[in-house]
Structure formats: C-alpha cells, structure tokens
C-alpha cells in the first residue's frame, strides 16, 4: 500500500471509530455531519428462512434527519446501544478519492427501561451482530461517508429499535 493509501485508510478508520462514539452517545446530528449530502443508509439481512435478501430499513441523509428529529414524538426503549467494531479491511480506489471499508460490528444493549428497570437496568444484552460496509469520499484529508450498509446476521430482533445502528 502506498503512503497516500495508508493515509487514506487511516482517515477511513478514524471516521468509522469516531462515528461509533457519536452513535453510542446518540449524537445523531454529529453523526450526520460525517456523511455526505448524498449519503445513503440501509440495514439489510439475508434470511435463510425465506431465502431472500431483505432490506429492513433504508433512507438518505434527509430522511434520516427527519426520522431522528421526530424521535421525541415516539415511545422508545431508551436502553443505550453500544457498538464494538473492528475495521477489517479498507480498500482505497486507484484515484485515491474514494474508499470502501468492511467493519465487524457487535451492538450491545445496556438495559435501562426496556423491560423491568428494577431488575434489568444496568445489565447488558447482545442486541445484534453484523458488519458495516461503508463507502467514503476523501475531502481535505478527511473521509466522509456516502454509503453505509449495515449487513446484519441477526434476524431475531425482539423489540427492535427506532435508532440508527
């Protein structure tokens, strides 16, 4: 890998890890700041039950913002979701302007109010596993998301969530 590609790969990793901290802290607006205007987001999973590649959720940047802005109007499980990720691969395109990354993803739920808070609050549950498959554009040395696919293995999602994974 060239020095420039290494630099780009480091920038990509930095954006991924930074985005996870922001999502963990439910700083949705700050997360969207890491995304291009034409950002596309989707949560997908293959179901061996119905033998179908499913899209559980999708939206562009504007749709995500609208949805997140409306969260206070909805009843929600407020148990925080905490991500543990490892960036497995970063492939930098030849022109050095775009890159693709594959990141292993585990999301834990730190129980607060989802079941019986007296008993469950403070406990951690495994919420889902999967991968982030991200595409980036380089801008002034920074990597910005223009596409994120959350590729889930989990299909038993129990109560689900209103939040961006």
């Amino acid at each position, binding site marked *: 890998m060239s020095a420039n590609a290494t630099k780009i790969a480091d920038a990509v990793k930095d954006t991924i890890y930074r985005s996870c901290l922001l999502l963990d802290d439910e700083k949705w607006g700050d997360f969207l700041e890491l995304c291009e205007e034409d950002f596309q987001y989707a*949560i997908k*999973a293959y*179901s*061996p*039950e*119905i*033998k*179908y590649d*499913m*899209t*559980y*959720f*999708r939206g562009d940047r504007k*749709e995500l913002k*609208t*949805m997140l802005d*409306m969260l206070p*109007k*909805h*009843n*929600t*499980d407020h148990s925080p979701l905490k991500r543990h990720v490892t960036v497995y691969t970063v492939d930098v395109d030849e022109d050095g302007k775009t890159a693709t990354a594959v990141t292993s993803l585990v999301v834990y739920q730190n129980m607060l109010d*989802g*079941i*019986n808070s007296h008993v469950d609050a403070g406990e951690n549950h495994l919420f889902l596993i999967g991968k982030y498959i991200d595409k980036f554009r380089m801008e002034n040395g920074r990597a910005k998301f223009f596409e994120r696919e959350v590729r889930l293995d989990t*299909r*038993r*999602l*129990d*109560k*689900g*969530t*209103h*939040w961006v*994974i």
Partner: protein
Amino acid sequence: MPARNHKQWIATPPLKSDEWVDSRIYTDPDIFEEELEKIFKKTWIPLCHESELSEPFDFRTFTIAREPIIVTRAPDNKVRAFLNVCPHRGNMIERRPSGSFLEGEPSGTPKNMTCMFHAWQFDMKGNCVHISREKEGYQDRIRKEDQGLRRLRCEVQFGGFVWVCLDDNMSQSVEDWAAGCFDCIREAIETEPLEVFHYHKAIINCNYKLWHDTNSEFYHDYMHYHNRITGFNDEYFARKNVVFDNGHVNVNTFEVKYDEYEGFESRAELSFPTFPPNQWYMIDMFPGMNFNLRGSALRADTVTPLAADKVMIEFRGLGLKSDTPEERMIRVNHHNSIWGPFGRNLHEDLIGVTGQGSAMQTGSDVRRILHGRREDNLIHDEVGMRHFYKEWGKWMNRMPSDPMKKYMAAAE
C-alpha cells in the same frame, strides 16, 4: 376515586363478566399447558407462505405446541406437512429452517428427507423409502412400507398461506375455519401470486394473548404518534370492528393520510389489486394470528407460544410476485417504515406488551384486565377482545374472568 387499597384493587370491576379477564389466564403455567393441548393442537395454524418453498423439494420447518413440523413441496407441486420426527428413534429429521432436498445429505441420497442418525429416508410425500439394513435387523417385523411419517392436515389458502392442523379430526376446512374473515381482502390477495419479502422474529416475555390483544384493539393508537397523525379523523373513528365465527375479527378500513407524517408518502400507486388507495384492513384470527393489509404491503404475524410468559412472534411482509425491483423496493419501504424491526410502530407495540408481561408474571397478584369499552363496535370499542375471550372460554371450558370456573357452568 383516590388510590385503592388491596380489597378495592382486587374487587370485581363494575362491568359485565365478559368485559374483563382474570390475569391468571396470562400467567398460569397449567392454563398455558392446557391451551397447547386444547387450542394449538386442535386449530388451523398458518405457518408460512407458499413462496418460501417455491420449488419442488423445497422445505420449511416449524413448531406447533412443541411438535416439530416439516412442510415440503413435492414433485407434484403439492405442499404437504408432516411431523418432523423419525419413526425410528424419535429424532428430529431436518434441523435447518429451510432448504432443498434436491441435494443429498451426508447420510442420505438426493430428493429424500434423511434422518442423519441411522439414515432412514423419506420421500416428499412422507413415504419411508429406505431403512438401513432393513431385512438384517427387522426381518419382516418392521417394513419401510409401514414406517411413513406422521402426515398432518395441510392446506394452502388465502393468498398462498400454508395452514397446518395437528388434529386429524378437525371437522372444518381452512375456508370454514376462517368463517368469512378474509372476505374483506380476498380479492386483493388472490388476484395474483404474492411473495414474501420480509421476515424477522421477536421473542417477548409476555403471554401470546397479550400480543393478540394488542393487534385486536385500536385504542392503543394513542401509543403510536404515526397512527394519530395519519388517522384520528372522523373517518378513522367511524371504522367498525366486525366479528366472525370461531373468534375471528376484522377491523374495517379507512383512508390513511400517510403524507401527514413527515417523510412518508401516499401508498396509492402500489395498492394491491382491486384495493382502493391507502386503505387499511386488519384480520385478527383466533388463536393469535394477524393479517394486516395497508394498501401496498401485506403483513402477517404468527405466534408460537413458548411458555405462559413467553411468546415467539414471526413477522412477514408480502408484495406481489410480479413486482419490478423498483416497485418491490418501494413496497419494502412502505412495509418496514412502520412494521419493520426499525420501523415507527412495531417497536412501540412490542414495548407495550413487554411492559404487560413484566407487570403480570407467574405468581403476580391477580389483576383484572379490562376490555369493556363499548362504542357501537367502532374502532375503540373492545369487542374484538371480548369476542376472542368468548371463543377462548369455549375451547378451554374456563371462564376468562374466573378461569378456575367452567365456562358453561358460569355462563348459566
């Protein structure tokens, strides 16, 4: 009235006995076991959609009342159901959720179901076609000709759903069992073939009936911002609950104003065949199945009760098999933006029943759970639940409001 003391709290509500239930019907393990025997092993249960086994030799596996079931499509294209249990040593024959028998398994040969344990094999009609070293071990005392699988009543009905009944003596067909409750959407779901595009499951710590209750009453729309903003007009409040024999209920339609919810759009363009734009019908079937057509997408929920306080709910979304990729993507969005695991409403519904499950556990003090709203059968009338529990009482021979009493004796 100020907060009540214990005697006041457990007092009989000032309602008729069919307008409330005793919470032990949601928490008592003995009642739960009885429900599996008396209801789930006796009634028609929709297990999947035929598009999940679209080719000959495809299969799906399920459980009804702890009994493992396998559904297959044979070379004659007929869908059949069997107990997924080998007659030899009682092993579960197929462990995968779905697949094809076109490829042979390690212990067997192509086109047959094979029990991996001792390699007994069965064809798609449930005939036993191979017993390993049959003559050597059994001489003629056990012959493969007599060792077929346990076949189950199975029908494909109402838009291609696969229905199975464990009781050979069930007197009604699926058509009879539905008693007309599908009429409201029948043309829409039977004009052309459907296809499943969504599946996920939830295991929730609540009784299965609490989930069905939630599907059966729309008073809980106060919980859903989406439903309040897109409904809650004169037309919404004029929707009728219609009851059918066997405990089933329809919730009649109205025109949903999807575009009142910011970021959402009208669904008129992709309405199911013959279905008026943006209409929404719901069918609640005893003992806990739900079919929900919101204009462009069909949702089907099936419940598998796991314990008095635990239920597995499987959620399916369906569109038209003829959808173009663009149409399908729009339909998927319409379905999942409300009903997906990351959608607006389903999460709220599941939080609701989880709260009920937490507040009513095995051994909890007995509570009186009300369904006594009467509004001329209109949308917030709780007639759907009353109708369900009348049916439940008959099948269980227990009074829902006093489950230790016999249903008929108390009714007199």
